[in-house]
């Protein structure tokens, strides 16, 4: 499809409207050089190497849009001359010592462009800048001397990550990148997301893992290196020979640096990237433009948080409890013990006395095998996974209304929506990369943003409208807004007529949700509620993003349902840029349930109670599957207390710290006859086990994960399992086979093939179709067609219509007057959950060594609390001891306790066993406590190097206009013209 034709160097070429010259040229033989342009960042216009002539005028190819009939000149002398001037200016700022440079891995844009332009010398010699290297950040360093001021890092920081820390100070004699208002990196608002080092075209901004490690000669002492660079420069006979040698060296590096694609395990966004390793040593994480969910984006955990893989604390051998200690044992002994105990308990108490908990950190294949072990080998449906702790209510709400329990579209739909409503989600910290897409669209495209939360977190700070309804009252304002929209006649009547059932009954139930009632229940004003309704009405597309602030309540499923109802009424389903987005918290929360680790559902969410479905599996597995749904996590713990659950096999979940009311959970563990825990570390949970099995993390195995977009992605093995640890799928198979399972999977793809045959949602999934960065969003048809946007041809119910599902408000639990502090809780950006993995990173630990209690200024003043004051919070279920941090992120008597502690400050010592009435997901967010001061003076729990103290400096991009306005700047095109004129 082309819109018009133009001429390039005299020959006719088809071009499209809105296409830049550079874009057009990428597929053509007439290439222009370019350094600062990056496909994911767009034109930055700083490097001036892509200059061409259009209709006789010099322009930058990266930013010039083509018009009908344009005549483009890319190779005349004048054009080449202008390009070379651009390159010369870059080389003034960058010393070419490629062979001893850690960035000499074939991807250096400067190296490659110098080579491509066949430059042999520079006319203005390299000149050092008067700045020291900034080594202060634990993860990356900035060398101003090598920085060519292309501004890619600034562009990424300002407009992709949108943390808005970096800028180039164009006013100095020698400009450089600065952090905030020019402070050391480690004292700035930098969140260490790694975007800057990922997009840097050279070695200026570099991951510390690469330093002195990547090259054969880069590990040389600094004192020796300098003269070496001088020698290289002194003997240079033109760049040609230097580049040839460094190319050879770069090729040699391929021999020992392995680059493996993997998928991040830290949240549900599903970032994929290459991991660079030298043996077991991780040099860096390199995101790829092709990565479907994240592109070039990462957060601090995905980019820099992998030290746990090589931690000395990793379990390397099975452990068997013996008296009051564990002893290391052989696999043979451990597996035999498990087999004999499971058999014994099954014989004595029946299959239902055993329970299985699968992990949302493990692969789809491992989830499938775990439920197959429970159902097919042991004969029980007592199988669940830890999404029970977070997102099951959202799935329930979507099953009730639209029929598929997953995000309606992709992250790209969130990006392009006109209106984003975020409810109960600290997206910038819990789903950092997904949040960047909202922040970017909001900043650059005028996307509207409404945030409903208790805390004034980053998204709230950025919102056009930030509302703070009373804790647990979201269902009320959502329903009132829905009612108001219907009353005003703003509903999408056509959509409702054609695609939705149950409107009348729904309307009736809505009667009680008047504005007056909502004002009373939520504390929001009528104007605010009307404003929300108007905003939704005026937006052509809307997405609702929600997380634990909605689901972890007693009415979590109902509130999720109310969200979906609102979207149905306004016609925000079944097209691009709209829909419901329950943000999945772990890498494979989605997949763990998708592949059947649920007590009432088999893979693909087919019901255990459905005879036909059971028959299908019974035939395939050659066993009988019990027809009654099994116990969920919550019921398993209760079952242990009751005495009818005797054994548990749990993998990849520190349930003993992340389940609510952990004192009660720990008591249960103590009552188990036999407890098997499979994990990387001797976690709090594992400490209660009879047998602990050493598992391998994602980097040591193959498999697939499914992210929040329903996107199935493959991970490849980066390194061998540590010690005697094993991938979970192998361990499960070993156990199954000792119990007579007779399984014979030689590779995870065998497991996927079996699942794909049985589970309709994944019918067309195969490892071939998922190769490299390829991915599939379920449902996947047998021919491999996937579904990036759900419901475009109706809803998966019998008449293809969605259902409006009436729901009522469940008021939050009252703990009694003495418990006057509302304890909100959740994640931090830099730690994953309790921190079993992230505390193994020295860098993360240095910036966030422990948890802290966020306290409002009002409460601090009232109680005489300072930064660092040690307090005790006590709920009816337990108490925590924690140091305070005063902040304006919380207000009044609401405090926030992040969950990154597994000791005395572990939040779940306070939480109750109350749960969502429909799914048993713990009501973590309904927690109150009383507060007492233990010690008034104490060290501030948050080091000054934490980004939360930073001072961001928002601007659009790199502000290249300031560069152009400098007295010493002359556009290379003008320079060429001037010279030509002088010479006549």
């Amino acid at each position, binding site marked *: 499809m082309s819109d018009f034709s133009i001429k390039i160097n005299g020959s006719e070429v088809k071009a499209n409207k809105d296409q830049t010259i550079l874009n057009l040229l990428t597929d053509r033989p007439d290439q222009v050089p370019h350094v600062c342009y990056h496909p994911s960042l767009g034109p930055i216009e700083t490097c001036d190497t892509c200059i061409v002539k259009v209709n006789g005028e010099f322009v930058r190819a990266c930013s010039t849009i083509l018009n009908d009939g344009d005549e483009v000149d890319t190779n005349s*002398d004048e054009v080449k001359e202008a390009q070379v001037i651009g390159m010369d200016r870059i080389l003034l700022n960058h010393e070419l010592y490629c062979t001893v440079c850690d960035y000499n891995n074939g991807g250096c844009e400067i190296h490659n462009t110098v080579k491509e332009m066949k430059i042999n*010398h520079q006319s203005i010699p390299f000149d050092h800048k008067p700045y020291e290297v900034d080594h202060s950040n634990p993860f990356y360093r900035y060398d101003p001397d090598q920085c060519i001021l292309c501004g890619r890092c600034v562009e990424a920081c300002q407009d992709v990550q949108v943390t808005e820390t970096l800028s180039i100070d164009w006013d100095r004699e020698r400009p450089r990148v600065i952090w905030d208002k020019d402070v050391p990196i480690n004292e700035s608002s930098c969140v260490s997301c790694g975007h800057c080092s990922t997009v840097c075209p050279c070695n200026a901004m570099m991951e510390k893992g690469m330093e002195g490690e990547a090259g054969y000669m880069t590990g040389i002492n600094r004192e020796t290196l300098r003269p070496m660079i001088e*020698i290289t420069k002194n003997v240079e006979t033109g760049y040609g020979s230097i580049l040839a040698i460094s190319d050879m060296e770069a090729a040699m590096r391929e021999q020992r640096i392995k680059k493996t694609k993997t998928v991040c395990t830290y949240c549900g966004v599903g970032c994929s990237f290459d991991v660079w390793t030298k043996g077991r040593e991780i040099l860096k994480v390199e995101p790829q433009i092709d990565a479907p969910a994240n592109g070039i984006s990462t957060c601090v955990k995905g980019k820099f948080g992998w030290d746990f893989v090589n931690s000395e604390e990793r379990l390397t051998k099975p452990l068997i409890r013996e008296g009051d*200690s564990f002893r290391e044992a052989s696999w043979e002994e451990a597996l035999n013990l498990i087999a004999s105990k499971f058999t014994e308990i099954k014989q004595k108490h029946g299959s239902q006395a055993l329970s299985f908990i699968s992990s949302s950190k493990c692969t789809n294949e491992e989830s499938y095998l775990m439920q197959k072990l429970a159902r097919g080998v042991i004969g029980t449906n007592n199988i669940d996974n830890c999404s029970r702790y977070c997102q099951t209510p959202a799935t329930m709400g979507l099953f009730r209304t639209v029929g598929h329990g997953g995000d309606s579209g992709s992250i790209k739909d969130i990006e392009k929506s006109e209106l984003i409503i975020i409810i109960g989600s600290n997206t910038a910290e819990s789903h950092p990369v997904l949040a960047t897409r909202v922040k970017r669209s909001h900043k650059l495209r005028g996307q509207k943003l409404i945030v409903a939360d208790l805390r004034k977190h980053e998204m709230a700070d950025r919102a056009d409208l930030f509302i703070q309804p009373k804790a647990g009252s979201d269902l009320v304002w959502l329903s009132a807004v829905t009612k108001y929209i219907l009353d005003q006649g703003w509903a999408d009547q056509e959509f409702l007529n054609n695609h939705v059932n149950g409107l009348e009954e729904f309307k009736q139930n809505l009667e009680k949700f008047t504005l007056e009632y909502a004002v009373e229940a939520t504390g929001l004003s009528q104007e605010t509620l009307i404003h929300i309704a108007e905003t939704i009405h005026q937006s052509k597309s809307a997405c609702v993003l929600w997380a634990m602030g909605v689901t972890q309540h007693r009415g979590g499923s109902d509130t999720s349902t109310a969200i979906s109802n609102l979207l149905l009424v306004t016609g925000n389903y079944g097209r691009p840029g709209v829909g419901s987005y329950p943000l999945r918290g772990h890498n494979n929360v989605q997949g763990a349930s998708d592949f059947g680790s649920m007590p009432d559902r088999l893979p693909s969410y087919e019901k255990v109670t459905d005879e036909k479905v059971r028959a299908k599996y019974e035939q395939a597995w050659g066993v009988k599957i019990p027809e009654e749904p099994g116990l969920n996590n919550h019921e398993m713990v209760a079952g242990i207390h009751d005495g009818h659950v005797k054994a548990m096999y749990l993998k990849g979940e520190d349930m003993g710290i992340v389940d609510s009311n952990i004192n009660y959970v720990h008591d249960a563990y*103590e009552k188990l006859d036999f407890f098997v825990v499979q994990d990387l570390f001797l976690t709090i949970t594992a400490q209660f086990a009879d047998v602990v099995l050493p598992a391998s993390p994602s980097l040591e195995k193959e498999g697939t994960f499914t992210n929040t977009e329903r996107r199935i992605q493959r991970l490849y093995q980066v390194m061998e399992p540590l010690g005697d640890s094993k991938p979970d799928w192998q361990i499960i198979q070993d156990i199954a086979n000792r119990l007579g399972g007779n399984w014979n999977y030689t590779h995870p793809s065998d497991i996927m093939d079996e699942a794909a045959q049985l589970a309709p949602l994944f019918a067309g999934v195969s490892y071939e179709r998922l190769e490299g960065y390829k991915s599939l969003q379920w449902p996947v048809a047998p021919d491999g067609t996937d579904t990036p946007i759900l419901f475009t041809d109706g809803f998966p119910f019998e008449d293809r219509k969605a259902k409006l599902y009436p729901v009522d408000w469940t008021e939050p639990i009252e703990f009694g007057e003495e418990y006057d502090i509302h304890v909100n809780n959740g994640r931090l950006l830099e730690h994953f959950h309790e921190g079993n993995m992230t505390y193994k990173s020295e860098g993360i630990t240095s910036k966030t060594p422990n948890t802290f209690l966020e306290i409002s200024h009002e409460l601090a003043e009232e109680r005489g609390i300072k930064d660092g004051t040690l307090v005790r919070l006590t709920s009816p279920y337990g108490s925590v001891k924690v140091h305070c941090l005063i902040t304006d992120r919380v207000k009044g008597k609401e405090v926030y306790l992040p969950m990154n502690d597994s000791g005395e400050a572990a939040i779940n010592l306070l939480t109750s066993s109350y749960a969502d009435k429909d799914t048993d997901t713990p009501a973590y967010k309904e927690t109150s406590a009383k507060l007492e001061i233990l010690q008034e003076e104490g060290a501030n729990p948050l080091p000054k190097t934490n980004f939360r103290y930073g001072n961001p400096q928002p601007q659009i991009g790199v502000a290249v206009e300031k560069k152009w306005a400098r007295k010493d700047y002359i556009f290379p095109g003008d320079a060429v013209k001037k010279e030509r004129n002088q010479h006549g």
Partner: protein
Amino acid sequence: MAKAIKNVHKLSVSEEEQRTKDLREVEDALIKNKQAIMQTLEIMNHMQDKGILSLLNGLFGQGDKVLDIAVKAMDKPENTNTIKNLLLLLGTLGMINVKQLEPFLLKIDAGIARVAEYKDTDEKTGYFDLVKSLKDPEINRAITILMQFLKGMGQDTEPFEKTVQDTPKKRTNQTKDKTLENNEKRS
């Protein structure tokens, strides 16, 4: 009642056991790579004889120091100049077209052979002899060749020189087919 415990007794392998295991591993590796190892030993023997092993030992043992000294020594003007000259000469050699040079060299060789035959004589050549000898086809050809050579030598080579700072305009590029190409001449 299974209380939480943290103590772990490491599977202690006795020193003797570990040694046996390690030895076994080494033995396996030796057998698997028998041929390569035998040959390596032979090479090492030669290196021992020639004193290379002890030289390398000293070099690697004091690696950082040696490298530092070497690098600093190299970083002296006369030394960097040597390397530079070498690189330049290499580059120049690369430019010579041996195909063209071959007949020229053969001719020089023939000339030398003739000179060797003649030895020293008292024979003198006068102006007329010179003019007369132009008629000798062999001599005539030699002089024509020499004159062409002188013409080539007189050409302006500045744009091709690697040793001077260039400007974008004068820049000379080495193209893929290893011939020089000049921006000024290129249209």
